[in-house]
């Protein structure tokens, strides 16, 4: 193992340990806040597979996130008693099905056209969910109860905020390791090759479209998983999460955190959430004005994102 790899794993262990301990030491609000950031971080991370690794900017991740959420809702509302694993399964199936559909059409297009196609697809799902009140609850969304953490014959316990945090942390960590491995696998290498130079990748014998479809699907599945976790934590699903502005925010997390690093988007999510939370405490009504100004300045002066910025600083 090289020195930098050892450094990486030490850093990973430290951050993980901090996150494990966090709910035990943080005040209750911040405990839940951290859990929520992890969930949004997973969503942002899933998008990084496309933006950072394949070079495709999706504005449709709200659809995968939302479908994961509604999938989980379907499981939790129809099956008695509510089953955690079924919720995850339904959520993944929901997000995956949508991802296949979206991927099939949108990957034929590139750049801004890909972005707009994904955005429009997510708006179609939004309109359907928003207006189909009988099934989706329409604007009011769906509320449901939290399932217990149960492995048949082993344990069965209700979630507390602390155990839920650990569960979310476990899922996000495993997802992170999974995504990291995917990006380091031969398949992930092909994705990065597409990002760097698509025609060249084609010319050395890769069927680029097929790789893109699989990338969108995988990304959609992880986004769906984030949706399931959100549903578990907050016990409701709402059409607002399918709205395109949510996708926009997730792109923002990626750009602010640093694309192509997997960790960066999580940092971006944390930064943006903290920024808004802290500013909202000082300027009750108009905090989005300074947030908007800071954000615009960051786009101009820190184009490589927080992580890229830090990395450059550390290297100096």
């Amino acid at each position, binding site marked *: 193992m090289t020195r930098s790899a050892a450094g990486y794993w030490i850093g990973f262990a430290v951050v993980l340990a901090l996150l494990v301990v966090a709910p035990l030491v943080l005040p209750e609000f911040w405990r839940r806040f951290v859990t929520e950031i992890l969930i949004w971080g997973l969503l942002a991370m899933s998008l990084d597979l496309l933006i950072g690794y394949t070079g495709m*900017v999706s504005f449709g991740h709200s659809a995968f996130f939302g479908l994961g959420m509604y999938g989980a809702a379907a499981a939790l509302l129809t099956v008695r008693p509510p089953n955690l694993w079924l919720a995850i399964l339904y959520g993944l199936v929901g997000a995956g099905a949508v991802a296949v559909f979206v991927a099939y*059409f949108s990957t*034929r*297009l590139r*750049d*801004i*056209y890909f972005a*707009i*196609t994904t955005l*429009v*697809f997510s*708006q*179609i799902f939004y*309109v*359907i969910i*928003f*207006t189909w009140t009988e099934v989706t609850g329409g604007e009011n969304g769906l509320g449901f109860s939290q399932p217990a953490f149960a492995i048949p014959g082993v344990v069965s316990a209700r979630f507390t905020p602390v155990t839920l945090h650990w569960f979310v942390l476990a899922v996000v960590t495993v997802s992170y390791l999974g995504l990291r491995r995917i990006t380091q696998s031969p398949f992930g290498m092909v994705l990065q090759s597409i990002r760097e130079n698509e025609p060249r990748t084609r010319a050395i014998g890769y069927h680029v479209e097929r790789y893109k479809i699989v990338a969108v699907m995988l990304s959609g599945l992880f986004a769906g998983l984030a949706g399931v976790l959100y549903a578990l934590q907050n016990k409701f699903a709402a059409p607002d999460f399918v709205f*395109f502005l949510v996708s*926009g925010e997730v*792109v*923002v997390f990626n*750009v602010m955190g640093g694309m192509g690093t997997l960790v960066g988007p999580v940092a971006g999510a944390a930064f943006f959430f903290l920024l808004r939370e802290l500013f909202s405490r000082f300027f009750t*009504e*108009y905090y*989005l*004005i300074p*947030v*908007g*100004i800071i*954000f*615009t300045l960051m*786009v*101009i002066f820190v*184009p490589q994102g927080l992580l890229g910025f830090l990395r450059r600083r550390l290297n100096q």
Partner: protein
Amino acid sequence: MTIPFDLLLIQVINGIVTGMILALVASGLTLIFGIMDVVNFAHGELFMLGAYLGSTVFLTTGNFWLALGAAVMGIGLLGAVIQTTTLRPLLGRDPLTTILATFGLSLVLQNYALWQYGPVPRKINEPITGHFSLFYLEYPWYRLLVAVLSAAIIGGLWLFMKYGKYGIWIRATTQDRVMAAAMGIPVPLVHTVVFAIGAAMAAASGVLFGPLTGVNHAMGLDFILRAFIVVVVGGMGNLGGSILAAIFLSLLEAFASIWVSPAQAVIVSFVVLILTLLFRPTGLFVPTPK
């Protein structure tokens, strides 16, 4: 199913009127994209601020035309400021960064409007109030005036672009920035002016639209997505295409609303957009260039 001819005709008129306003918003957007590769996410906010500025002037002077003129000038100036401070440093970077920067701006502008103008919706009175009967409806002349004015503004822009000295500069810059610079055209200035023109057009449509809907801080949001769709269907950066696409999509939605529910009518336009992108990615109304 019988075809309701009266409704059909009404919807043609509706489609054209809505389409012309949409075209006015979209042509500013597409102008900016075509020349600078900037996807201006704050366009809806410029539309909204234009309407607010118009309503303020209208409130003090009572003159619609003065309000229109003031909004156009004021927001045009604001556009120039935004371009020089925020977008000029981003020139040549990924268009994604311009989306994000203008997204940040839209946050600022929207909340500024809320702060400055307060929560109560404002009003701009239409300069003409009459109506004529159209089958079972009384149709307001003002809606037709809006269509005509939008057409006139777009036509004016077209004439300016076609014959004006700066119009030629702008078109030359659109086609080939580098060669335009080599021909002595001050490209950075052209960019600023174009953004100002785009902003002014958004403001003009905001004022024109004001009497139809009232003025509120969120009115940009309702418009911006549709304007983006129009720009894409028309071919990004293609002015003529945007106008045709705006009318086409508005007509389509108006017709669709005869037979299907309004929500489904919205989906129809989304589906058209996706089909357009898949089969004519450069837009519905331009021949695919080699």
